[in-house]
C-alpha cells in the first residue's frame, strides 16, 4: 500500500466555493487539496453569462470566471485532485477521504463545498427523453435547438437567465411557470419581458414530456381550469431548483430537512473539523458571491481549528 497523501485541508468540490477555499488555504500557507469529480468551476461553468458578480460591470462568461478562479487557486499552491469523494471516515485528529478511484487522502480539516445538482420534475418522459430534447444545461445543448421552438420550465433566476440565452439561438422560447409571477431578479425579468422571442405560460404545471425518439411536445395543465394542452416544442430545459450534494457527509454532520448542511457562524458543521461552504449549506441566497464569501470564512476557520489541534 503506497503512502496516503496527507494535506492540511481537503476541500470537497471545485466550484466557486471550493476554488476560493483553495485560494485562501494556499495563501495561508496550508497544504490544500481540491477534490473535484467533474470540471473545476462547478455550476458556474455551465452558466452562459454572470451579471451580478462584483468586479465585472460588463458581465463575465461563467467559463471565464471559473478558469480565473481555478488559476488563482493554483497560483497559491492548491492541488487539484480529479476524482470523486466517495466516503469520509473520522480518525483521531484527521479525516480519511476515500475517492471513487479507490485512492485515498488524509487531511486535518475538511471543507465541504460540493454544491447542489439540478432537481428533476419527475414527470413521464423526462428520463426517457434525456439528451433527446430534455436538458438541464442550456450552454451544453442549446446549439442543438437552433431555429427551433423550446420551453424552459421554472421561474427563478436560472430559468429566466437561460431563457434569455436560448432566445439568442432558438425561434421561440416559452417559459412555463407554476405561478403567476417570476421569482427571478427584477432586472432579469425586464430583459426577458422585452425579448420578443420569449413568451410566458403562467400558472401551468408540467404533466408530461411527450415524444418518441425526440421531444415533440410539453404537456402542461392550467392550475385554475385544470385544462391540459400540449406546447409543440422540440426542447425542454428544466430549471426548477436544486438538491444539495451532501450524501458523502450525511452520516457525519447535521443536515436540515432538505439535506442542506447546517453550520455555525464560522461555518463549522456539527462535526469538529468539518466545515461547509457554498450552495451545499443551509442558507437563504445561493449565489457565487455568497459561495465565495462562505469559502473565505470556512478556510480561515479551518486554519484556526488546525492550529489549535
Amino acid at each position, binding site marked *: 500500500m503506497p503512502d496516503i497523501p496527507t494535506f492540511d485541508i481537503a476541500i470537497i468540490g471545485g466550484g466557486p466555493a471550493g476554488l476560493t477555499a483553495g485560494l485562501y488555504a494556499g495563501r495561508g500557507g496550508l497544504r490544500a487539496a481540491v477534490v473535484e469529480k467533474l470540471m473545476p468551476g462547478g455550476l458556474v461553468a455551465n452558466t452562459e453569462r454572470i451579471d451580478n458578480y462584483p468586479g465585472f460591470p460588463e458581465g463575465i462568461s461563467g467559463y471565464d470566471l471559473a478558469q480565473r478562479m481555478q488559476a488563482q487557486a493554483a497560483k497559491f499552491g492548491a492541488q487539484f485532485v480529479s476524482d470523486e469523494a466517495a466516503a469520509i471516515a473520522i480518525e483521531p485528529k484527521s479525516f480519511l477521504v476515500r475517492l471513487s478511484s479507490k485512492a485515498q487522502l488524509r487531511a486535518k480539516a475538511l471543507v465541504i463545498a460540493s454544491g447542489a445538482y439540478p432537481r428533476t420534475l419527475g414527470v413521464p418522459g423526462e428520463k426517457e427523453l434525456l439528451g433527446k430534447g430534455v436538458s438541464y444545461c442550456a450552454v451544453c445543448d442549446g*446549439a442543438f435547438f437552433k431555429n427551433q421552438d423550446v420551453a424552459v420550465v421554472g421561474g427563478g433566476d436560472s430559468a429566466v437567465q437561460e431563457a434569455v440565452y436560448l432566445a439568442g439561438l432558438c425561434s421561440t422560447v416559452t417559459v412555463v411557470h407554476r405561478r403567476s409571477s417570476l421569482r427571478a431578479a427584477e432586472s432579469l425579468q425586464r430583459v426577458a419581458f422585452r425579448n420578443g422571442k420569449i413568451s410566458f405560460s403562467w400558472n401551468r404545471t408540467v404533466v408530461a414530456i411527450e415524444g418518441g425518439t425526440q421531444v415533440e411536445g410539453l404537456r402542461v395543465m392550467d392550475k385554475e381550469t385544470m385544462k391540459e394542452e400540449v406546447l409543440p416544442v422540440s426542447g425542454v430545459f428544466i430549471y426548477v431548483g436544486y438538491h444539495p450534494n451532501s450524501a458523502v457527509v450525511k452520516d457525519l454532520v447535521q443536515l436540515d430537512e432538505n439535506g442542506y448542511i447546517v453550520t455555525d457562524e464560522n461555518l463549522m458543521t456539527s462535526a469538529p473539523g468539518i466545515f461547509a461552504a457554498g450552495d451545499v449549506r443551509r442558507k437563504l441566497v445561493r449565489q457565487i458571491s455568497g459561495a465565495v464569501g462562505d469559502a473565505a470564512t470556512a478556510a480561515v476557520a479551518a486554519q484556526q481549528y488546525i492550529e489549535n489541534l
Partner: protein
Amino acid sequence: MPLLKDEDQKYLRAEFARKLTGPVKIVFFTQAQDCMFCQPTEQIIRELLPLSDKLSLETHAFAPGSEEATRYGIDKIPAIVLVGAKDYGVRFYGIPAGFEFSTLVADIIDVSRGETSFSPEARDKVRAIAKPVDIQVFVSPTCPYCPPAVRLAHMAAIENGLVTAAMVESTEFPHLAHQYNVAGVPRTIFNGTVSLEGAAPEALFIEKLLEAAR
C-alpha cells in the same frame, strides 16, 4: 492572438515536463478550404507543440481514401490522432476547444506514458475485452460535463488495442449527431448501437462498454 496565455503556457510546460515520459506524435488531418474549424484547431496544436520536446506534429492534407487517411481511419476533418509508443486509437474529430482542451492535454499525458487512471478493477475489465469496440463521444465545447466522458472512452482505447475512441464535436458534424439522434451532450455511442447518456461514472461506462463487446 495566442489562445494560451503566458501563465497557461508556463503551467502546461511544467505539467508536461513532470508527466510526459515517451514521445507523442500529433497526427493532424486538415484542409485549406471549406473547413471552418481546421485553422483554429491547427492553432491550438501549434501552441501546444513548443511546450515539450516530446511532442511532434505530422500534418496531412485530408483526402478521403488516401494512404494516410486509410491508415488512421479518418473520414472527416479536422481530425487529430495521438500516437505514442503506438497508435492507441485515440481520435478527436472537430476542434478540441473550450472544455475539451483539458481532455486533449490529459490524453497527451496518458498516451505518452501508455497508462491511464482507471481503477485496477476497471482496467482489468477493459483489458479483457476480446472484440473490437468503436466509441464515439458527442460533445460541445461549452459542455462542462463532457470531458470526463471523452476521457473514459480514450482511456479504454489506451488500455486495449481492440478499442478505438473518438471525441466528436456535435455542432461540426450535424449529420452524425442527427444519425444518432443526439440532442444533448455528452452522449457516448458504442459500436453505433449501445448508447450512454450524460457524464457517467466509471462503473456505468465499463458496464456499457462490456455490453457492446459481448
